[in-house]
């Protein structure tokens, strides 16, 4: 690596370390402390050992939420990544259209998450929403996302696609722009088909940004909270209750500090494992490239 070896660089990193330590390490320590105790009130707590962990790990509602979460994240990736690549390929390469498209595409990313939920509530409600009314009256499909679990699932999923595919598109587009024009010309001379260009030039060049896209989308969909909270409130029943919602309900709604803390830690460990695997794969991939 062409970097200066100097441990004094720690002084440059120190402010970040302090700020993030303040907002990450101290809270995390507190969560660990809470997770082994029954907090009855201020100054009144009992050590319970691994009881909360045992509760959390054997709680079947939680297993359900976890499975729901995994299936959901998988669906999100399976739809958004191919769609994102596809749309990125159709974007114009130059001219005024580029700026216009980019601004339009980025629009959903800038909407506060609860407003995203609100937009989809007013958009899909069977009494006042555009899709709700259209589906019910014009096509005669009894669509109602507040009562039918399948419909509510589909709505949450489509909302996520609407909300986050632009991120994948922007990333892929940036990756595509980095391909030198000479590559395309060479392919043209060789008479390569459109698919061959995609398979052997564009896809390999996009691998780096695609990994970032997959990583970000996986993590963010794994901790999704606000949008389904506003749209469906986790219902009907528990059909769209994901892990974060479950946790928030426990922590703030019922104020079960101990079990919520134990759950937080398990949740955190799952995320930590996935990020570490992704991170290792990506950085070893970077090394192979260089």
């Amino acid at each position, binding site marked *: 690596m062409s970097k200066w070896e100097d441990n004094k660089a720690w002084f440059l990193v120190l402010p970040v370390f302090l700020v993030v330590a303040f907002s990450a390490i101290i809270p995390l320590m507190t969560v660990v402390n809470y997770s*082994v105790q029954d907090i009855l009130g201020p100054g009144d707590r009992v050590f319970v050992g691994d009881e909360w962990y*045992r509760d959390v790990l054997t709680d079947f509602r939680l297993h359900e939420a976890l499975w729901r979460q995994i299936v959901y994240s998988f669906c999100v990736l399976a739809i958004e990544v191919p769609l994102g690549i596809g749309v990125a390929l159709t974007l114009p390469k130059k001219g005024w259209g580029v700026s216009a498209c980019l601004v339009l595409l980025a629009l959903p990313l800038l909407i506060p998450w609860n407003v995203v939920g609100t937009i989809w509530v007013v958009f899909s409600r069977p009494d006042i929403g555009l899709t709700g009314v259209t589906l019910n009256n014009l096509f005669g499909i009894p669509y109602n996302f507040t009562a039918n679990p399948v419909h509510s699932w589909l709505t949450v999923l489509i909302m996520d696609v609407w909300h986050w595919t632009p991120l994948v598109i922007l990333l892929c587009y940036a990756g595509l722009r980095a391909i030198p024009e000479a590559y395309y010309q060479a392919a043209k001379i060789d008479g390569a088909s459109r698919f061959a260009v995609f398979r052997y030039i564009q896809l390999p060049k996009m691998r780096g940004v695609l990994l970032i896209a997959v990583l970000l989308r996986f993590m963010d969909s794994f901790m999704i909270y606000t949008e389904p909270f506003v749209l469906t409130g986790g219902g009907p029943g528990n059909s769209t209750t994901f892990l974060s919602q479950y946790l928030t309900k426990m922590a703030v709604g019922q104020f079960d500090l101990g079990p919520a803390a134990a759950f937080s830690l398990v949740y955190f460990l799952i995320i*930590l494992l996935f990020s570490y695997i992704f991170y290792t794969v990506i950085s070893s991939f970077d090394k192979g490239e260089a």
Partner: protein
Amino acid sequence: MTLEWMAWTPITASFFIFIGLVLMGMTVWQIVSPTVESKGFLPMPTTRGDRLFIGLLGSCYILLAWIGLTELSLWIALALCFLFLGLTLRFG
């Protein structure tokens, strides 16, 4: 401001002191003899710090699996964790 809101207990406190000591020890070790990336039974080449992290993370999962799947004493699991940590650090 008091630390009461953090609800410290002897066990968690000693856990964090242990982690802190390990990190300090690793730093000193690093100064005395810098680590070399090497390939062990793990799928990628790792430095000492990487192996420590994998060892600790793996230990957490061992403990969770133990709590979730068995009713046996946690001390056995703890011993397993140390064994795992040692193995990863030495051969990982």
